[in-house]
């Protein structure tokens, strides 16, 4: 479905992705993990064509995405920070996206699922962070596209909503979708992910199943495994102290 070959990307002097090659060929939930600044969001934005590769190619269903835009019809995207035009109401935003994107979305069940009915007439600027994230989720998931990319889907959600989201994702997975998720919540990964991609310093450090990861690093849990990776990283990159910092950041989320 998605093939990434030797992807390089830098912002100014800072090189964020240093030759990432990945293939997503079988449906399921893939968790993209890594410390802050490891390039998770950049990778996602590259797939969406929002960030343009410095080097390397990204193919979507065999087609190079460079300069293309129609392929985005096949992707539902949940951005990391839910920011919307503040003057619009929820209802208007939903209608606008539907108008811009065309097709036949089905927002009703999602609105009911996240209990958004009372907020439909409110201006987006007046919503709480959690509610916004729910709106964000509705927007992302109201289309029934084969690929679903979620950047930090659980941020700001209460436990009930998180539970419902997990349920929803399971259903989507059942439909045979490709689902890419970045998150800092390790329990979410353990519970949901079929596969893990671990990004570190702009490289794919590890890719494989959860069990494989735990075995490779001889850890009983995902958290431990990641701590190990980062310790290794600390040894390897001790000169810049990045590993330790990254470990704290990742573990704080756990």
């Amino acid at each position, binding site marked *: 479905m998605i093939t990434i070959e030797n992807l390089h990307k830098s912002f100014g002097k800072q090189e964020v992705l240093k030759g990432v090659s990945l293939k997503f060929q079988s449906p399921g939930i893939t968790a993209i993990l890594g410390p802050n600044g490891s390039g998770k969001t950049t990778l996602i*934005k590259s797939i969406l064509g*929002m*960030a343009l590769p410095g080097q390397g190619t990204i193919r979507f269903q065999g087609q190079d995405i460079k*300069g293309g*835009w129609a392929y985005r019809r096949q992707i539902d995207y949940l*951005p990391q920070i839910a920011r*919307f*035009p503040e003057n619009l109401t929820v209802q208007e935003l939903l209608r606008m996206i539907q108008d*811009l*994107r065309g097709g036949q979305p089905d927002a009703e069940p999602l609105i009911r699922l996240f209990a958004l009915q009372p907020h439909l007439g409110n201006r987006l600027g007046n919503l709480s962070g959690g509610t916004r994230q729910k709106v964000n989720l509705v927007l992302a998931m109201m289309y029934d596209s084969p690929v679903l990319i979620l950047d930090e889907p659980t941020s700001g959600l209460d436990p009930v909503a998180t539970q419902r989201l997990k349920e929803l994702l399971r259903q989507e997975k059942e439909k045979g979708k490709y689902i890419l998720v970045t998150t800092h919540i390790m329990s979410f990964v353990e519970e949901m992910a079929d596969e893990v991609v671990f990004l570190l310093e702009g490289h794919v450090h590890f890719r494989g199943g959860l069990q494989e990861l735990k075995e490779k690093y001889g850890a009983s849990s995902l958290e431990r495994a990641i701590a190990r990776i980062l310790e290794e990283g600390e040894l390897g990159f001790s000169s810049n102290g990045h590993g330790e910092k990254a470990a704290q950041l990742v573990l704080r989320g756990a």
Partner: protein
Amino acid sequence: MFKILKYSFYDLTRSRWLYIYGAFYLLLSASLLWLGGGLSKAIISLMNIILVLVPLIATMFGVMYYYNSREFTELLLAQPIRRSHIFFGQYLGVACSLAISLLLGVGLPFVLYGIFSSSEIWNFSILLLVGLFLSFIFSAIAFFIALRNENRIKGFGLAILVWLFFAVIYDGLFLLALSMFSDYPLERFAIGASLFNPIDLSRILILLKLDISALMGYTGAVIQNFMGTVLGMACSLGVLLLWVALPAWGIKRVAVRKDF
């Protein structure tokens, strides 16, 4: 693109600033007409204001709207929409809403005053036309600058500087050049130099309509012979169009290559 334009426009119609802008023109035109004494006087006074204010407001508004609609833009970028359409749509949304504010703010009082049954209708039309052009030109320049600068302060500063350059500094240099080379025939230079500044070009177009050319002696005659004819008028409007197209092309170029 038109859908984006529609939503940008829709978004802007909820902005207080646009109404303040329109109301300002409404008040200004009305007071110039009813308190200032007469159509032609009002048109001249309005010209002075439009030539300074329209570019300034268009510049500020363009930059402001770009930075304030980053979220909207990012939302759109993930949608199956062509990139250039997103930015052109937004740009046109800003430019059109500014243009409509100007059109209503200035137009309504003049229509009520009876411009349609007056001989000043052409002068007034050219003033409005030029005002619309300036709205489109300077909001395009503003969008271009904002697109190139992620840093808001830098973007704002640069945009204001560009406005200042075209509104004041350019004319200062122009005058300096004229007085330094006053021993040479400068009519062609004067025409050429005014083409490179949309504000100057607009001003001269209006002044020619208001027949100030009679004041300009030989220079006026040369300019009148160039711009006063249908061909010259078409040429001038063509240059103004080019002034819209140039930054618009810049927007496309930058938009296609930019990371978000």
